[in-house]
């Protein structure tokens, strides 16, 4: 009951946020009109009148961007929760432990060597899929390295995990800047903009390019909730209880890097969503993943939609990359987490 209530409430909130965010911008569209236009697409006619140009702005410009924010917000936050379960530590975050920068190395390689790739790889959705796959390879290698560095059978050693993350981030950043150094001016601008993390490039094409890589983990990760709960007891206890531990770890790793890589490929590095959201949600839902996963996904979607709304309205007509906003909110939160950890160590 508590389960259905919390999920329903968050879903309702998400719908409201989406209606407001889609309507806000240079051309204001009231939420009722937004609803009418969207439902019209689904074949339901509401007695609300609107211009066809309003509908075009909404469907072509606003909606893909909001949908992308919802997908990436939900995906990153669930990937963060999954990684925290995998490392059995609440400080694991795809950005902090180097998975996002691993993905960015893969994606930057595609940006810079675009010209030397065969033509069929550079057209339309194939290009985005190539970016996705390159980012996935980079992210997976980084995730595998961080596991080798930090993992023990009693869970990750948190200092090793974070130090390993610093090292991996430094290594990946040096690669990224090396690529930027040899790139053309135009490529340089796109690399820099994209390192900051932005949803500015959203079109229906980018949405379609990431949808499978984010929706699949969003559907599959909740099915691991029971096993992840038992996994909190420790690897050996989980085995005794009947969890196939090595399969579980591999699934978690694959699914969460898939999400991170897809979102990095289209929106760059949007940090801290995967750290902050699961942490806050856990305060309300308790540690069980059965409730944490759906609530974290919905909350992540809400947060990123709102953050992106700010990013494109706060300095309009200019645009602030959304990664800057999430980092400004997330980094102080991370410091607060460290202080909390310090207090618990001193007790």
């Amino acid at each position, binding site marked *: 009951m508590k389960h259905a209530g919390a999920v329903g409430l968050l879903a309702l909130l998400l719908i409201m946020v989406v209606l407001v965010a889609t309507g806000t911008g240079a051309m204001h569209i009231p939420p009722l009109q937004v609803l009418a236009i969207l439902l019209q697409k689904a074949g339901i006619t509401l007695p609300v009148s609107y211009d066809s140009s309003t509908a075009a702005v909404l469907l072509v410009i606003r909606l893909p961007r909001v949908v992308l924010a919802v997908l990436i917000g939900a995906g990153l936050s669930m990937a963060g929760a999954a990684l925290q379960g995998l490392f059995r530590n609440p400080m694991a975050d795809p950005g902090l432990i180097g998975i996002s920068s691993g993905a960015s190395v893969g994606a930057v390689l595609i940006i810079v060597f675009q010209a030397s790739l065969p033509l069929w790889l550079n057209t339309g959705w194939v290009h985005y899929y190539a970016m996705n796959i390159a980012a996935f390879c980079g992210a997976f290698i980084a995730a595998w390295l961080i596991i080798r560095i930090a993992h023990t059978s009693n869970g990750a050693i948190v200092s090793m995990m974070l130090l390993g993350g610093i090292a991996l981030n430094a290594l990946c950043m040096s690669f990224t800047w090396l690529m930027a150094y040899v790139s053309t001016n135009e490529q340089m601008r796109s690399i820099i903009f994209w390192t900051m993390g932005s949803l500015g490039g959203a079109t229906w094409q980018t949405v379609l390019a990431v949808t499978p890589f984010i929706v699949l983990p969003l559907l599959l990760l909740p099915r691991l909730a029971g096993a992840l709960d038992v996994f909190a007891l*420790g690897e050996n206890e989980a085995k*005794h*209880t*009947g969890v*196939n*531990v090595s399969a579980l770890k591999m699934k978690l790793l694959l699914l969460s890097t898939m999400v991170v890589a897809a979102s990095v490929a289209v929106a760059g590095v949007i940090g801290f969503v995967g750290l902050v959201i699961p942490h806050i949600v856990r305060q309300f839902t*308790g540690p*069980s993943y059965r409730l944490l996963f759906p609530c974290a996904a919905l909350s992540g979607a809400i947060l990123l939609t709102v953050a992106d709304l700010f990013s494109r309205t706060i300095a309009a007509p200019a645009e602030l990359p959304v990664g800057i906003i999430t980092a400004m909110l997330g980094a102080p939160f991370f410091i607060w987490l460290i202080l909390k950890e310090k207090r618990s160590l001193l007790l």
Partner: protein
Amino acid sequence: MMLDVQELSLSLGGHRILHQVSFQAKAGECCVIMGANGAGKSTLLKVLAGEYPHYTGSVLLGGNPLRELTTAEQARQRAVLSQRIQLHLPFTVSELVKMGRYVYGEKETVDKAIVDYAMHTLQVYELRDRAWTTLSGGQQQRVHMARVLAQLLEAPQLDGGVDGKILLLDEPVTGMDIRHQQLALQLAAELAEHGVLVVAVLHDFHLAAAWADRIFMLHKGSIYAAGTTEVVLTAANIRHCFDIDVQVLEHPACDHPIIMTLNHTHLSKKITENGSNYFSA
């Protein structure tokens, strides 16, 4: 035979921990593994729990080689209570006990009845909504025992389909008060009456003597003595394996031998000797 171990040997990090261990145990027995620190008790239990699959020799669980059973098959047949469980998340008591049902999939109504029954049995039902992190060490141990009981049972009663299952306990009563120690071992004995093979590592001679059908005494990775309490718990065996002097007494109010440690002159002399050797060296 529920459990058939033949010539089991195991090395960890180049050290030989277990050497040519052989024993058999049948359904309904309470077996105790004893021995000094480092004798290999916990390691033996961990091999039976499937944690070290690189052993040599053979381990048969209900006639099947342990290595060939999947994790889920093992979990349906055998539950394990480990010594130290590190958990820093505030799961509630009932959530934790329910984890024992993992291998059976989601069957809400049966699960809830079994989980409630297990919590009542270990007297933690009143704590069911408390966060794990707020419990005392002994309470936490009882919650884990309830979780393990929930994994064994197939119905909310002790005779519910537990026949032929195996329960492994590694120092199960550490940290519990004396009443709950009795309660926990009593429960294990009742499970044995319903056909569970219980194998426990115990340190306490009195608990072992009162509870065990058979005792295996390990010394340096091998079984030094095996058999009933009277056969194994002799002054000579204890002196050989633990290097202390004891006297084995009988008391009319007690149907098992009482092990009494003698004054520790032997031990303290030894400490002094070692000390002086150390300083003169």
